[in-house]
């Protein structure tokens, strides 16, 4: 619907433009908070508001001092280090277990598939604070509270539902006769999985992994409960920074995180298009 047909009635004409306006408003609502943060992070002053210099585009009003602070301040650096150590480990666990669970649960002969699926997805639906409190008590009992492994496991549990959902979605379109064909040609189950099934569900696995990574990278509630100060991640540091030291460094960090997210999403989308082109499917 890129052009109004000539036979459109008045009502249709009004709706045609109203539809665009509504879409624009929704888009603005979603994007404005993120966009506003970006110029503010270059503020030369320690304020969260636009200074008169900034509004007049005076170069003196802008600086990279908050970025410098982020890269030199030891609090921020140890938080970054913790995040970078926790998120990939949690992602690997999520992807491994989530993919296996999705494949297992997609087979017809597994009993109680729906019930098992519901349990595995529950961390996504149960309010985070409840999961976090539960994990706190459970992990304290078994000595994982306040450890690196504890936080990784907790984040993996949060990431698994995303992987299960995306991989299950790709498995719906997966032709079961392909695995039969592979078996028929002499490939054992393991070879079949890595040579035939895995390459074809890879887009789902990657996007699930991306969600799991962002979940862990972004997560503050569970890490507050399960982690100790030795596992202080970036979001945790931002959270305390907001309460205790009101520094626009937070805005610099936020900008960096937004840039990373955009980069990751772009890469995944490019990979997806490439794999579809390779398979001769027209890009949508």
């Amino acid at each position: 619907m890129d052009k109004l047909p000539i036979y459109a009635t008045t009502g249709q004409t009004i709706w045609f433009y109203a539809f665009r306006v509504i879409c624009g408003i929704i888009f603005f609502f979603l994007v404005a908070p993120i966009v506003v943060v970006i110029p503010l992070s270059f503020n030369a002053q320690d304020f969260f508001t636009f200074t008169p210099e900034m509004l007049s585009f005076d170069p003196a009003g802008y600086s990279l001092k908050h970025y410098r602070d982020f890269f030199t301040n030891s609090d921020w650096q140890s938080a970054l280090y913790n995040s970078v150590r926790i998120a990939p480990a949690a992602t690997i666990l999520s992807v491994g277990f989530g993919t296996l669970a999705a494949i297992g649960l997609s087979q017809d002969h597994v009993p109680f598939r729906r019930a098992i699926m519901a349990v595995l997805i529950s961390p996504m639906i149960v309010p985070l604070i409840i999961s976090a409190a539960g994990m706190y008590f459970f992990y304290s009992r078994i000595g994982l509270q306040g450890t690196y492994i504890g936080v990784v496991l907790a984040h993996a549990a949060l990431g698994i539902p995303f992987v299960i959902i995306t991989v299950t979605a790709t498995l719906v379109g997966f032709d079961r006769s392909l695995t039969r064909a592979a078996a028929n040609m002499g490939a054992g189950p393991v070879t079949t999985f890595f040579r035939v099934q895995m390459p074809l569900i890879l887009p789902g696995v990657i996007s699930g992994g991306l969600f799991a990574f962002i979940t862990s990278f972004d997560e503050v509630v569970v890490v507050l409960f399960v982690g100790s100060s030795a596992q202080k991640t970036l979001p945790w540091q931002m959270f305390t920074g907001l309460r205790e030291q009101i520094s626009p460094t937070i805005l610099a960090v936020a900008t960096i995180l937004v840039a990373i997210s955009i980069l990751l999403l772009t890469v995944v989308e490019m990979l997806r298009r490439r794999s579809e082109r390779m398979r001769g499917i027209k890009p949508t």
Partner: protein
Amino acid sequence: MKDANNEQGFVVFDHVQKSYDGEVLVVKDLNLSIGRGEFLTMLGPSGSGKTTCLMMLAGFETATHGDILLGGKPINNIPPHKRGIGMVFQNYALFPHMTIAENLSFPLEVRKMGKSERDQKVQRALDMVQMGSFGSRRPGQLSGGQQQRVALARALVFEPELVLMDEPLGALDKQLREHMQFEIKRISDDLGITVVYVTHDQTEALTMSDRVAVFDDGRIQQLAPPDQLYEAPENSFVAQFIGENNTMEGVVKEIKNGVALVQLDGGDLIDAKPINVSKAGDRTRVSIRPERVEYNRDRLHKDAHTLKAEVLEFIYMGDIFRTRLRVGKNEDFIVKTRNAPDQVRLKPGQQIEIGWLPEDCRALDA
């Protein structure tokens, strides 16, 4: 084709039964022996159990009861990937993420074959189906017919002795399908492989097979070479299912000298060959092929029984004429005649008498 009876049979189904739910038998007591080098077709309507039999042979389904033997050894406990059977799937099942050459190379790679030998075999298999220059394409870039050829080459590339085909031509248009029928037949004869072919298309079954097993209701209704199947069906299901057929119901009056005298429900008397009727009084369904019906009195036996018929429709089909008659209450009695210079072209409304040789008309079960 080698005679299936002079050895024990390369593929043997021995009292095989299959049930998916533990109650209904999809395959009921299947006994079938397929000779080495034979082209056997399993033909039947959907739900007749033919695909289930193929899947049990490939190892994707397990028999509920009975044994399946391959080369004399039971294979019930051998997983599909160790059976060494080639298969062409209905939807081809080509790996979309691999090129054509990689698809064909896959079964050789899992057999740990060296690269140069692999490349050589892949190229030979592709050449055999006239796809030699397509090795670097992906399945998505090929037409349906080309994908079908590749699937065939992939099933043959690792030189299996037995190849299964599950309605491989179902998705092709008519012309391509006919062409591929001859192609598959030629290749299987050249290579001397044993083929078990599943289809619901009777023309396909008749043109390609050494023998055809007609399936219905989980049983083999008849197992015979194509000509016998067409000319000498053993029961009404086979007569109805294979080719076009005129049927009439009646009661056997007497059986004498190998000829049954049948009184049709309309009262008329006809001669027929008794197939599975044994005594006077049996209900029967007589079956006669449209091309074996004669309406030229001179060509019939002097004392042959004839029926009165009225011409309802005359259809010119080029090589043949197809005439629809009313015989008694049956308004769908078809007669096919060859378009020859001396052939009579009947006109609608014309009253004629029809008859046939007693051996062409078969008295089957009612």
